[in-house]
């Protein structure tokens, strides 16, 4: 952690110097340019005749806010919806989300549509301060003005909650505002989603949802040491990555070896997104959160549109290298893993890793199990868990937590066995890998 932190600081400073030199040479000053923002329109209120359309807009805004999963971050565990206070730990410090209920003192009761648009589209607070990209305006900038206004009208229709949240604890040098402005200058370009006229309306709707409201690349993308999505300047950004500040890996959505869906029927993709399970898969960890909070509310049309877009993403991955041959020591390791599997796993996942599709995921040929890094599979064994309760799957079956039952080496053995049995051919897992994955379990 220390090492990674110091590296990031050094890289920051080097980058700053380099950029300042370049800017001096070009005679530029930092500050985002925005070619797509609209002139401010101050709307002062609605007449009685508008109240029907206002209600429609609020209702639409409620749906859009679900798709953008505003509540996911702006609600503390067990807290009042949208009142903020949730901590987001990152390598740059801990951010604490804000209260976005219409309370005038502690929320956004004094904001107007234009203020909200500026935050969503330009990443700037009402007072003009640049916001940290922990608030995913780098993705939300693709949201249309109309949708932004609808989300705002929904938020303003909520009951105000008076809740003052503490300010974040951002570490030096990241708390130095000019650095943030510089970061924005380099990595952030405001702009609403532009439809690709060569694609269908459905595909474009899916792209808009995935890239904008759904902000999938906030997790399913690699980030550089400064927290910027790699490849943000252009091209696909869903190639998978470690979720910043967490012990989960968000698999690539463009790799057939990870979570790419090119080979899936559209219905199965939509089913996974909206119910949390499909015949071939189950969601866990942060993805289960996203399904519960957000994706289960997708209309059938929007779910299908997302599926159409995700399925169309071009393959980005090379086949992983074949694992090394297993020596005698490795075979003994696997033998012990097999015995643990027999005792703890076989009842649900089957003696040949066949599982029960839609209930207990098959392990034979399971990409989530053989993926590199193996962190998600380790986490699933340690903490167990249920896919989310959704209207399509209200009473999911679950996985027991084994952190209290199995030692690190036992988890490593059984997962090594699973990764090499029934046609699976992935690397063995070490005790150290399991130990590292225990962070955040208690």
């Amino acid at each position, binding site marked *: 952690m220390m090492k990674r932190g110091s590296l990031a600081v050094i890289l920051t400073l080097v980058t700053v110097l380099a950029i300042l030199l370049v800017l001096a040479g070009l005679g530029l000053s930092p500050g985002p340019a925005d070619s797509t923002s609209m002139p401010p329109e101050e709307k002062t209120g609605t007449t009685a005749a508008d109240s029907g359309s206002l209600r429609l807009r609020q209702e639409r805004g409620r749906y859009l806010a679900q798709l953008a*999963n505003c509540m996911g*971050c702006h609600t503390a*565990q*067990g807290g009042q919806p949208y009142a903020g206070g949730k901590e*987001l*730990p*990152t390598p740059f410090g801990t951010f604490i989300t804000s209260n976005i209920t219409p309370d005038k003192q502690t929320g956004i009761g004094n904001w107007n549509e234009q203020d909200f648009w500026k935050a969503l589209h330009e990443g700037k607070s009402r007072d003009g301060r640049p916001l940290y990209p922990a608030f995913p305006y780098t993705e939300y900038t693709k949201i249309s003005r109309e949708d932004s206004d609808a989300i705002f009208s929904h938020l303003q229709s909520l009951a105000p909650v008076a809740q003052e949240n503490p300010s974040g604890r951002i570490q030096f040098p990241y708390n130095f505002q000019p650095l943030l402005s510089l970061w924005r200058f380099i990595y952030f370009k405001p702009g609403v989603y532009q439809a690709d006229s060569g694609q269908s309306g459905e595909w474009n709707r899916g792209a808009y949802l995935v890239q904008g409201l759904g*902000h999938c690349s*906030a*997790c*399913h993308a690699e980030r550089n040491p400064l927290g910027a999505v790699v490849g943000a300047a252009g091209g696909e950004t869903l190639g998978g990555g470690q979720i*910043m*500040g*967490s012990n*989960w*890996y*968000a*698999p690539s959505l463009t790799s057939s070896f990870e*979570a790419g869906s090119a080979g899936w029927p559209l219905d199965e993709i939509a089913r996974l997104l909206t119910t*949390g399970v499909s*015949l*071939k898969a189950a*969601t866990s*960890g*942060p*993805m*289960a*959160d996203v399904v519960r*909070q957000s994706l289960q509310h997708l209309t059938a049309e929007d779910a299908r549109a997302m599926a159409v877009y995700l399925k169309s993403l071009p393959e980005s991955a090379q086949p992983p290298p074949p694992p090394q041959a297993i020596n005698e020591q490795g075979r003994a390791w696997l033998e012990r893993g097999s015995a643990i599997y027999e005792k703890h796993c076989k009842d*649900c996942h089957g003696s*040949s890793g*066949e*599982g*029960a*599709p839609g209930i207990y*995921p098959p392990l*034979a040929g*399971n*990409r*989530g*199990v053989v993926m590199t890094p193996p962190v*998600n599979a380790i986490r*699933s064994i340690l*903490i*167990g*868990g249920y*896919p*989310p*309760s959704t209207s399509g799957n*209200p009473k*999911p079956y*679950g996985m*027991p937590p084994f952190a*209290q*039952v199995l030692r690190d080496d036992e988890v490593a053995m059984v997962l090594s066995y699973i990764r090499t049995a*029934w*046609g699976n051919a992935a690397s063995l897992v070490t005790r150290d890998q399991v130990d590292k994955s225990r*962070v*955040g*379990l208690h």
Partner: protein
Amino acid sequence: MKTFFLMMAICSIVLAPGAEFAVAAAVDVPDTMAERVKPCVACHGSEGVAGKDSFYPRLAGKPKGYLFNQLRDFRDGRRYYRPMALLLENLSDEYLMEMASHFADLKQPYPPPEPASLTPGEAALARRLIENGDSARNIPACVECHGKALMGTPPFIPGLLGLPRMYMVAQFGAWRSGGLLRGRKADCMSEIGKQLTVEETNALAAWLSSRPVPERDFSVATLAAEMAQRCGDIVRSSAE
């Protein structure tokens, strides 16, 4: 703990077998609550009865409202135990109520009591608190809420017999540190727990765990209005 972007995260999709893998017949899974609570029994024991030397308390036969409150409080962070919070984080109130119902309806025999390890003075201290409380410190008698037979008052107040001593010691500690009902409007047991001394809680845990569980059914008792008032939303909140 590190969960940057956690709530907007998309990750860990467990995916499917390809055609090159032999497909065996799927495991046959019963469509029952017993099957669905398998993750619970890994620690709490099959039939919801953990061993008597276990830290994990039994679930079988506890009042439904009590179990539901615990499940929801674990999920929402009011009762702090991270493994439970992680396990339950994406389950609905309705589903948690079904789980509570499942365990409440299990009728399983209780383990024999633990051997008593109290001095006569400690036993007397425990019995005094249980029967009379201590009005000088505003500590009600345990029996006022937990029932004359100490087997609880449905649907929200749990029984005190048939629990491992170590579990009760840990619970008293958690009440004292406020870790069990954080954010509840009336936090009656924390107020009581903070009044009790370590000697008193140790005596209570030792005495209670040494008592046999009586066999008759206690589900008729009701909570006195004064105590219900003091317990606040613990005895009101429910998904029902």
